[in-house]
């Protein structure tokens, strides 16, 4: 079939460039220039976090719609136990060269434009759990109440002010806050036009230590010798114990055959189940890959300890041992018969 479309080479090149620029120049480059965030807090305290932002717009005037309708967006990574979204423990406001205002929770049904997922799910898919080592954190997304009509070539400067009440779950927590800022039109969009390949800003704050409760310390900043997944659970679930045999030198460093030794499994009536410090198939941790040094064991506690319908577990007190049971590692990597035990408490908060 004969084509009647005739484009000379030079014109084709121009056409392609226009198409590329049309695609590339439809974004707002967001940059967080400074994070003012405390590194310590006490449970119940409301801390203030300040993000100094700048936004540069590069928007094609041929784009539709133009000007580009946009809300400022902040995605914040917080411990699940702090109930940031549900209990109104966090408020966000902003000052900017375009105007001042408040941010509100992103509607649960709102869709992030690139992933077609909800904004929180999109943040989880793209940014995971940030620098944290334990998956007990969640993304909570806010957007400005005010929508702005952004035009090409403007520079917006501003501050996002976060008021955050910490420690709602009654535990002590050590975790990495993380902040993602963008505009609602572009979302978490990667774009090779920009030097860093993205037009949103993703930033870590320093590790934040929240104390002031009688609860346990949940440390998500530092690697742990042992950890459980899920980090919070009840006895009627599968829980996976991970032992990190490469974290620090211990008496088990040269061993690839390690076992869970439960000294005591405590019940809700205060009594304890013992005789579960055994080296058997059911207590054998399996290395994830031949040289990883990470050993896993998944158990169903109700079955593992043979509980009756009326019994409920409250905590496990345990060591990690070799096959003979004579080499024992406890909290802090300390070995010996009197080494302090690891403790895992059952609970959802």
């Amino acid at each position, binding site marked *: 079939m004969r084509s009647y479309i005739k484009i000379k080479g030079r014109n084709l090149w121009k056409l392609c460039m226009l198409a590329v620029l049309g695609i590339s120049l439809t974004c707002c480059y967001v940059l967080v220039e400074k994070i003012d965030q405390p590194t310590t807090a006490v449970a119940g305290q409301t801390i203030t976090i300040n993000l100094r932002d700048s936004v540069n717009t590069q928007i094609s005037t041929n784009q539709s719609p133009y000007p580009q309708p946009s809300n400022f967006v902040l995605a914040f990574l917080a411990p*699940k136990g702090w109930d940031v979204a549900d209990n109104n423990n966090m408020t966000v406001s902003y000052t900017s060269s375009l105007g001042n205002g408040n941010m509100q929770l992103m509607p649960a049904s709102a869709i992030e434009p690139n992933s077609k997922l909800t904004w929180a799910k999109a943040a989880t898919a793209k940014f995971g759990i940030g620098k944290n080592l334990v*998956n007990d954190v969640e993304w909570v997304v806010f957007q400005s109440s005010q929508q702005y009509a952004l035009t090409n070539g403007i520079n917006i400067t501003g501050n996002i002010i976060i008021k955050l009440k910490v420690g709602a779950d009654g535990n002590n927590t050590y975790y990495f806050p993380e902040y993602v800022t963008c505009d609602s039109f572009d979302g978490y969009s990667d774009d090779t036009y920009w030097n860093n390949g993205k037009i949103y800003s993703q930033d870590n704050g320093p590790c934040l230590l929240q104390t002031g409760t009688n609860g346990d310390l949940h440390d998500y900043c530092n690697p742990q010798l042992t950890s459980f997944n*899920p980090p*919070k*659970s*009840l*006895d*009627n*679930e*599968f829980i*996976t114990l991970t032992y990190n045999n490469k974290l620090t030198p211990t008496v088990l460093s040269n061993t690839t055959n390690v076992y869970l030794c439960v000294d005591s499994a405590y019940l809700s009536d205060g009594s304890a189940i013992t005789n579960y410090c055994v080296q058997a*198939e*059911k207590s054998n941790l399996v290395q994830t890959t031949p040289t990883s040094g990470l050993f*896993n064991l*998944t*158990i*169903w506690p*109700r*079955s593992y300890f043979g509980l009756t*319908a009326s019994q409920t577990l409250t905590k496990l007190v345990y060591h990690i041992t070799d096959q003979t049971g004579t080499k024992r590692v406890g909290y802090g990597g300390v070995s010996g018969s009197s080494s302090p035990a690891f403790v895992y408490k059952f*609970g*959802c908060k």
Partner: protein
Amino acid sequence: MKKISRLERFNLLLVFAVALITWSSCKTDKIRSLSEPVKDISGTWKIVKATRNGTDITTVVDTNIYNFSKFRLSFSGNGYTVTNPLPFIVSANGTYSVDNPQYPFLITFTATGTTTPVSTAFTYPIVNGVRVLTLVFSPGCPQNAYSYSFVKVN
């Protein structure tokens, strides 16, 4: 007055006859509406996939100690039974119901000895020609979601 010839009379009768046959051959066809069949989940089901908080744990958990492959969920009448139990939405046998037999979105289990029914959304698609029943539930903490996908045991 012109007399009608025999041929003309014959033609007239022929036209009438054809018209009568044509008219009598017309009838109104009643279109029967197709009703959605009732979703029958009766039978015995086995787990083919299990996830915990979105992570596949099928092979992680399926060991000599805990067996996804041996777990069975059977529906019969309005009752269900669980064989080789694992963490599940219910811990004992009992009765079940669905919210709509034709378009079920919710299944409710009531374990024997309890008065509190537990409901969960379920999906019932056909995957590669096989009906797959998927239940999502939290046997422990509400923030920990488990998903078991079942196929019928032949």
